[in-house]
């Protein structure tokens, strides 16, 4: 049996970390794009659209991410589509992220005081103009900290992709553990690597939040 040195283990884990980062980025960018649509659908005044968006959000927030992964992976293959694990994981995480980001952003838009709507309406701005020039610039500012904060959840969520066989950090850890039986060392390193990804994001989120509070005490 081949012997694994500490450096072998770490090197392999670091290689797999790249996939975790890639999957996180896809999920976050894809989820952000879809999330924008979800947010828009939630705040329009078209009842049917709002309801559809609400259903979408409730379904995705009310089911485990793991089930969503299974459905994307096995469900699509039942339909005769042979999807590689990366695609299934990216799809599931995108849907999941979009539901949460859409709802976070809707909250930010609705946090803008009614007076801002009334003042801009009485200046004869149309709804899209109110959004573009008055509401969104303010909503974006307050959206930054919770958005960055949610990115942490996405990074950790990618660990579930290991179950459908996608070799990211957690899966790589499991495989190395199976070969070395050094569970504590391997999973300790895996955890540390996740921490190294998430901690800077948490810090950034908290920093942004503090800066925002200072600027908005008026």
């Amino acid at each position, binding site marked *: 049996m081949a012997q694994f040195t500490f450096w072998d283990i770490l090197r392999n884990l670091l290689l797999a970390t790249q996939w975790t980062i890639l999957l996180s980025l896809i999920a976050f960018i894809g989820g952000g794009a879809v999330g924008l649509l979800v947010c828009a659908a939630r705040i329009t005044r078209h009842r049917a659209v709002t309801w559809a968006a609400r259903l979408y959000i409730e379904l995705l927030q009310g089911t485990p991410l793991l089930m969503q992964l299974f459905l994307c992976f096995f469900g699509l293959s039942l339909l005769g589509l042979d999807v590689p694990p990366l695609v299934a994981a990216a799809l599931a995480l995108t849907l999941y992220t979009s539901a949460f980001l859409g709802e976070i952003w809707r909250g930010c838009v609705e946090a803008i005081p009614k007076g*801002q709507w*009334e*003042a801009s309406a009485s*200046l*004869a701005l*149309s709804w899209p103009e109110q959004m573009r020039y008055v509401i969104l*610039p*303010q909503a974006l500012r307050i959206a930054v900290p919770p958005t960055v904060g949610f990115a942490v959840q996405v990074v950790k969520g990618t660990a579930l992709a290991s179950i459908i066989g996608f070799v990211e950090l957690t899966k790589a850890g499991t495989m190395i553990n199976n070969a070395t039986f050094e569970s504590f060392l391997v999973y300790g390193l895996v955890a540390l690597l996740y921490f190294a990804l998430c901690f800077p994001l948490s810090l950034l989120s908290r920093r942004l939040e503090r800066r925002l509070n200072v600027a908005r005490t008026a």
Partner: protein
Amino acid sequence: MSLVRLDGVEKRFGALQVLKGIDLKIESGQVVAIIGRSGSGKSTLLRCINGLETHDDGRITVDGRVVGEDAKALRDLRQSVGMVFQQFNLFPHLSAGRNVMLAPMVVKHTSEREAEGLARDCLAQVGLAEKFGAYPEQLSGGQQQRVAIARALAMQPKIILCDEITSALDPELVGEVLKVVKDLAERGMTLIMVTHEMGFAREVADLLVFMHQGRVHEAGPPAQLFDAPQTAELRQFLGAVL
């Protein structure tokens, strides 16, 4: 023809009838002060005039236009009806100058240079020429409210609605805002204001409207209403506030 005309205007919030048939005629250049207890429907009445609230019955015309629910028609109407709010409602992400420039640029497609000149003029009119670049949070309440007035002026409205514009101010800041409003009145702007400043209403208004339980209970020249109130309700109200 009257600039603003209300005929039998009614407004309900659910089971609560806030306006119970308001008739009112306001001529160009008139300064109208609306007084009354809280809950008497003063603010609602004001907000119906520029369509911030829809009315359920009756008819409101402003400058020959009927106030309805069509969004485009409302926007046209609002170009000639400015509004100033109790809580200022300045846009906190924009400087004072940009607050004033926004609507002319977005709604009237005024060029940036022209809008800036306009904004400087309007800010000068309210005594804040030097605050063009200041953000709302850097201004006192009185200054913020004056920027809000300048913002309304920049659209060159025919009427300005003032909804208790000094009620959120510290007492020592009330005067500077009232002075600006008085200037506007003297220059012939049509003003409709809901106010608790009785002294100011008496001094500046041409028409005083006393509202009680959703109706115009008494209306007329301020001196007449203040000195010889005809109804017990007005006497009681004046007794409580003066």
